[in-house]
């Protein structure tokens, strides 16, 4: 697979036990990612259907770095459109959410309906017989470009490449049950959003959620309060391709044992003054209390106790990305459950008692890695393959990600 003559990059190992640090800062790599990964035949997450609840609702997001608009037209159908006026290329929608019957470009007032059809062009036939568009100008040739769209149980995905496999085969039999665990078909209720920019390469975020090694070490809060720890029953699950993965774990107790003695981060003496912060109730079938799912190429589904969120990755050049969190519950949640989700949201987001650690580490990773493009990172925990495991002392999911990444990128 690795072509040693490829001028873009020579992969430093036969397998994925090494990752070249050039992947984190090279503009040519980044350009190829935009084209092949975010422009390729893959389902990128754009948002929740509940964010465009009614005919006329629209919301903005991005795939890779390309801005898109999600709309619900007058008939209730969902569309994902390039956020780019067909005339001069302006980004048409700026606010996060809105309602409209049509989309009007402010520059020359080209007007589109919510399905992206061009319905109005000022001075089409000229003014007093002068000027105007040529006689063969056809409005139907100049609509907003539509992406392929698929909604599954309230989550909306889109692809620039219409030659994309059906969504269910795309997720695969290993991942679909985990996806449906949270998106089980019940109507969703959006609780709010959080957005942050991180000065790091977008892949660092994906790696982070595929890497259970750090969770038991870096996250003192998780370890101390037993939310995620190497000694608890857990699993790392990959799909056949390696591109998607889940970290699955079960909550334990705040009690010292053989495993915690090896974790400097376990703080046995800490107690919460407000126990309501961590007052989880079981709401999903099975024993797992946390499932973090990564869906290629831009989605993280977070279920930590009762805090549920999607995290959408938006790239901003090789050295920065944005993380868009949408926290949600179910329309049939009672008040106590909603409050529980809102309280547990303290763990996540830009101010999250757990996730602060991650964004800090990613900025440090970027600073080191991007400055040494000729060097490599080491991924050998749990072996050199990329297979599912019934424990979390493995970096297999990160290797799986890079195995697939190399195939798509031809590196």
């Amino acid at each position: 697979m690795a072509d040693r003559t490829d001028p873009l990059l020579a992969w430093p190992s036969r397998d994925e036990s090494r990752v070249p640090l050039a992947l984190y800062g090279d503009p040519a790599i980044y350009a190829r990612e935009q084209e092949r990964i975010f422009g390729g035949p893959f389902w990128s997450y754009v948002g929740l259907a509940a964010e465009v609840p009614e005919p006329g609702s629209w919301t903005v997001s991005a795939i890779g770095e390309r801005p898109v608009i999600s709309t619900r037209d007058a008939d209730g159908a969902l569309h994902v459109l390039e956020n780019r006026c067909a005339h001069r290329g302006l980004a048409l929608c700026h606010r996060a959410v809105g309602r409209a019957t049509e989309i009007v470009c402010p520059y020359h007032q080209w007007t589109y309906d919510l399905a992206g059809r061009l319905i109005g062009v000022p001075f089409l036939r000229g003014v007093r017989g002068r000027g105007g568009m040529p006689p063969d100008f056809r409005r139907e040739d100049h609509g907003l470009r539509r992406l392929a769209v698929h909604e599954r149980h309230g989550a909306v995905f889109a692809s620039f490449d219409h030659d994309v496999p059906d969504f269910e085969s795309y997720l695969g039999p290993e991942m679909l049950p985990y996806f449906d665990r949270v998106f089980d078909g019940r109507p969703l209720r959006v609780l709010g959003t959080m957005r942050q920019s991180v000065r790091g390469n977008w892949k660092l975020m994906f790696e982070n959620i595929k890497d259970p090694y750090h969770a038991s070490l870096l996250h003192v809060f998780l370890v101390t309060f037993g939310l995620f720890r190497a000694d608890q029953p857990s699993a790392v699950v990959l799909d056949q391709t390696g591109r998607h993965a889940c970290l699955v774990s079960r909550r334990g107790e705040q009690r010292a044992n053989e495993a915690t003695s090896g974790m400097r981060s376990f703080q046995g003496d800490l107690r919460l003054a407000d126990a309501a912060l961590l007052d989880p109730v079981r709401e999903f079938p099975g024993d797992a209390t946390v499932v973090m799912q990564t869906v290629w190429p831009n989605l993280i589904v977070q279920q930590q106790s009762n805090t549920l969120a999607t995290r959408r990755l938006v790239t901003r050049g090789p050295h920065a990305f944005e993380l868009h969190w949408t926290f949600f519950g179910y329309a049939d949640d009672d008040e106590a459950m909603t409050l529980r989700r809102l309280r547990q949201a303290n763990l996540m987001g830009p101010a999250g008692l757990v996730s602060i650690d991650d964004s800090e580490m990613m900025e440090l990773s970027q600073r080191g890695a991007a400055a040494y493009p000729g060097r490599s990172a080491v991924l050998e925990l749990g072996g050199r393959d990329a297979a599912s495991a019934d424990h979390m002392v493995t970096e297999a999911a990160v290797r799986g990600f890079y195995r697939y990444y190399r195939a798509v990128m031809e590196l």
Partner: protein
Amino acid sequence: MSELVELYAEYGDCLDEGDLERWVDLFTEDASYRLTSRENHDLGLPLALVRCEGRAGLRDRAMAIGRTAVFRPRRMRHLIGAPRVVAGADDDTIASRATFAVFETIEGEETRVFLTGRSFDRVVREGGRLRFRERVCVFDASLVPGSIVYPL
């Protein structure tokens, strides 16, 4: 009024000095603190980036930042505008608003504007001094630069 101004000044000072224990003490026992974005606030969405209930919840936030969170050392600088007392509160409660601008200096980096916004507050007298019974900080930005380590 000068006592109210003093409360806000002390509030900013606690956070500038990273003294979160003293920060907790500026709230009443039953206080509520929320930090959220203008977008959530305007859309009436209940999610907050930081949500503390009572001094217990504030103490947990202070403990977690002080003892469990891993982050690069940084200095925060709070410029809090003069509080404006608004109508609607009863005799015992002052409803006030203030704008804030917070700057962040991560060690080894230049200073950047971190977040700006407004706070919607309820202040009461408890234990011989004014304290916040409710503080809702609403920041303007659509994107948070990096992490919010310390409360606003």
